């Protein structure tokens, strides 16, 4: 008989410049907090999945994290999937528990690109192992923002738009982040302030780029947890999907359409749900342009109209799809290799109806999207609150 697996615990700490003494200390704190939140004893952890920070030289980072925690989970793996990692780890942990691989599972991703030795390693490594081809792209000096700027220029040209479409994303996320205590950037952002921010790679300005943040999060899944032991309404993974085009923009078949929609379609099919069932979408937006293209690829807006979804919402219009209620990567923060973890944590908090002032009323189904590289690879998960499962 197949087992019931639920997300029982989450943890997140404030993003920004944090001063944690090591990435391991942050991982330890997040895992302990998530286990506490779930009410699950550490010795029940049979699955531990991590993303290795670039600064950590361990052969298998997950095994080093387990060692740090004094745990011996049977299944201990690290993922190389960029910002799609958190969603893919969630799926893997879920499937392992469903298949009988253990009692509880921990998924954790955290990084400290602003702090100590990891900052230097981050800057050095991003140039070496970023989404830029070492032979046929590196010689021409494209930064990561420049790669996204190539898509942004193509997008604005294709739909005859100006920088207001990009500003709408940055301003939407900033307005959302104002209500989240863990968000990195919470100050208000006017259109003039957006336009005053310095140009990084035209048409992308500083405020089109997610900040480099310390941070991360952890999630605990439990198999067949007795109702009496639960501390929160259970959140279930109803279905997930993935989609990939290619790693380097030089070889992409389109500059304005990628595979986020493929990932969402897979998740909808697996979950037996429709797009209209989604109450909240948490979209991977390391740059403002990523939000627009991903929203449109997933069918939440017509081509060229992604900004409208966000502008209506910011204006207080009811009935439109709530997006990135935590501020997205753009304002909640982008903890380097742990990018996308906050999307997962926010979904669980919203589905518990524990999001306070930013709560999406009646939130029962949430989409968590993750993306690797320059639109290279995508993952989508549909999480549902217990009674909707």
């Amino acid at each position, binding site marked *: 008989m197949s087992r019931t697996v639920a997300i029982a615990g989450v943890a997140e700490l404030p993003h920004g410049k944090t001063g944690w003494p090591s990435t391991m200390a942050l991982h330890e704190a997040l895992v302990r907090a998530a286990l506490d939140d779930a009410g699950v004893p550490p010795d029940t952890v049979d699955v531990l999945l991590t993303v290795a920070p670039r600064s950590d030289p361990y052969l298998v980072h997950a095994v080093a994290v387990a060692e740090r925690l004094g745990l011996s989970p049977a299944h201990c793996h690290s993922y190389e999937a960029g910002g799609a990692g958190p969603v893919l780890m969630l799926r893997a942990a879920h499937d392992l528990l469903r298949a009988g691989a253990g009692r509880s599972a921990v998924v954790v991703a955290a990084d400290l690109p602003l702090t100590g030795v990891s900052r230097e390693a981050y800057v050095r490594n991003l140039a070496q192992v970023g989404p830029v081809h070492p032979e046929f792209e590196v*010689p021409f000096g494209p930064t990561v923002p*420049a790669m996204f700027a190539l898509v942004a220029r193509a997008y604005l040209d294709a739909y005859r738009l100006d920088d207001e479409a990009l500003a709408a994303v940055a301003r939407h996320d900033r307005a959302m982040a104002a209500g989240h205590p863990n968000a990195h950037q919470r100050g208000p952002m006017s259109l003039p302030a957006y336009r005053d921010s310095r140009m990084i790679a035209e048409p992308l300005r500083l405020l089109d780029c997610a900040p480099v943040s310390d941070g991360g999060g952890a999630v605990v899944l439990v198999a067949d947890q007795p109702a009496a032991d639960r501390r929160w309404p259970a959140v279930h993974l109803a279905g997930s999907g993935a989609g990939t085009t290619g790693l*380097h923009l*030089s*070889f992409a078949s389109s500059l304005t359409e990628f595979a986020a929609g493929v990932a969402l379609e897979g998740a909808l099919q697996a979950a037996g749900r429709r797009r209209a069932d989604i109450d909240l979408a948490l979209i991977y937006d390391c740059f403002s342009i990523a939000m627009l293209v991903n929203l449109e690829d997933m069918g939440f807006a017509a081509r060229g109209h992604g900004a409208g979804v966000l502008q209506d919402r910011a204006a207080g219009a009811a009935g439109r799809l709530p997006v990135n209620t935590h501020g997205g990567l753009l304002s909640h923060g982008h903890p380097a290799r742990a990018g996308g973890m906050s999307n997962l944590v926010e979904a669980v908090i919203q589905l518990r109806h524990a999001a306070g002032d930013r709560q999406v009323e009646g939130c029962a189904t949430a989409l968590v999207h993750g993306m690797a590289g320059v639109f290279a690879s995508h993952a989508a998960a549909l999480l549902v609150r217990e009674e909707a499962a």
Partner: protein
Amino acid sequence: MRHPTPTTTDETAPFWQGAGEGALVLPRCTGCGRWRWPVASACPGCGAPLHWAPASGLGTVLTFTVVHRAASDALAADVPYVVALVALDEGVRLLSNVVGCAPSEVSAGRRVRVAFEPAEHSGIMVPVFVVCEPAGPTRCAEDGATYVTYHRLEPHER
């Protein structure tokens, strides 16, 4: 521009050797004749082997960005510089730079032709692009090999 040196492999030696001789040399299918990029052992369309063949060096800017924050300290002296995706007439795309003009002269749809500049330290020549004059070269012939317009930038043009 102070181009960072590419991490080359033996497999792509013909590309860099061609660049050193002022030629844009790219993989082409021996079966269906289509140009292929990136490098592979066999054509992803028909499965026939690929060989290296000289391309026209002509293309069109698909999209571009003007970089204000450089990728490295070495490149900081070159900002603002233009990174562009160029659709070659052969049907494949190269990421490269448009050089030899003000960034404001670059736009999507602009015709460009290949030129070559040395990478820092290694001196490996890398393919960059310069804008064609309005009356410049037209689309290359279908066989790609007859209209080879190689152009090596003189120092004053860089």
